[in-house]
């Protein structure tokens, strides 16, 4: 007979999230999952370190000198991996005052450090679930896996949940916004060096934004662009609205997980439902 009662809490979810935010894997270590914690730490910090290495620690030099300050990078995706970002700022800061040529791989490096921040946010949500005692039995339905898919390709998370019509609408709308924005801005939105904060927003669109950027070669401004502001706004909004899509996917995945647990009689009241 299946066990009834709420899932056993393994720790305080808020503590697990805060620990993970500062040090990837620390939340899982706190919850007693040492091996997973080690793998997560190596993966997330390894990505940040590789990005740091490729960019020679100069990714934050993309930020306009007028906007630099102690809290200026909190709107960058790297803020998801707070410990590494603070260490980065303390070590390299915003670079020297003298303009120096950027390293060849700085754009790829900055993408990798941004990706590290996003992965750590996913790790935070995972730690929160684990702390609440939620452990999905089927990996394909894990809310964190679906969350990552929803980031990678807008609508993919919905598609994997079987919500095909919504998946198609989300993809068309968000990638369409990004495409129209990129067209209006004549591709000038595809450079973190040129538009640090708008880039952070469109990074949340996942692969469509990153692949387009890599393929475009970051075109130079060749003429006056009358709609560049609208283009930047559109491309950035495409990414920001994908956060809503990601939250939708995560919420439904969590609800379905709770439904599975009810069906398996693991939640309190399951006996009454069955009766």
């Amino acid at each position, binding site marked *: 007979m299946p066990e009834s009662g709420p899932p056993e809490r393994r720790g305080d979810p808020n503590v697990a999230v805060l620990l993970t935010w500062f040090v990837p894997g620390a939340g899982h270590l706190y919850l007693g999952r040492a091996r997973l914690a080690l793998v997560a730490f190596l993966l997330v910090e390894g990505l940040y370190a590789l990005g740091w290495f490729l960019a020679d620690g100069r990714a934050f030099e993309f930020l306009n000198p007028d906007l630099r300050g102690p809290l200026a990078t909190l709107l960058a995706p790297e803020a998801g991996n707070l410990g590494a970002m603070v260490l980065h700022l303390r070590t390299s800061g915003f670079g020297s005052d003298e303009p120096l040529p950027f390293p060849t791989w700085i754009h790829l490096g900055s993408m990798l450090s941004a990706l590290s921040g996003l992965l750590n946010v996913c790790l935070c949500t995972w730690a929160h679930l684990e702390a609440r005692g939620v452990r999905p039995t089927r990996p394909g339905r894990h809310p964190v896996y679906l969350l990552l898919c929803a980031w990678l390709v807008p609508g993919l998370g919905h598609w994997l949940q079987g*919500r095909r*019509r*919504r998946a198609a*609408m*989300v993809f068309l*709308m*968000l990638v369409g*916004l990004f495409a*129209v924005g990129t067209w209006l801005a004549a591709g000038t939105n595809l450079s973190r060096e040129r538009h640090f904060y708008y880039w952070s927003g469109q990074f949340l669109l996942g692969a469509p934004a990153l692949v387009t950027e890599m393929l475009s070669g970051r075109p130079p401004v060749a003429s006056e662009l*009358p*709609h560049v502001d*609208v283009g930047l*706004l*559109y491309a950035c*909004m495409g990414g920001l*609205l994908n956060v*809503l*899509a990601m*939250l*939708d996917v995560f*919420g*439904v995945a969590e*609800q379905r997980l709770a439904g599975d647990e009810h069906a398996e009689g693991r939640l309190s009241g399951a006996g009454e439902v069955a009766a």
Partner: protein
Amino acid sequence: MMLAEHVLFFLLLSLAIVVMSAFYSEPEDAPALRSVPRRYGVFVLACAVIAVVMLLLERVFASVR
């Protein structure tokens, strides 16, 4: 840029915002899509009110004439 272009760009972007917020609020597609016209109307109207208030404030307090 022409005012009409501004308004058109705004209406397009606000439609995407409204549809995504409807999807976020309603897990089922049918009720979410049914609620879009009402949400869109409210959103555009609220934005219009804010624009009018801002224009009035600009005219009253920030005019250099």
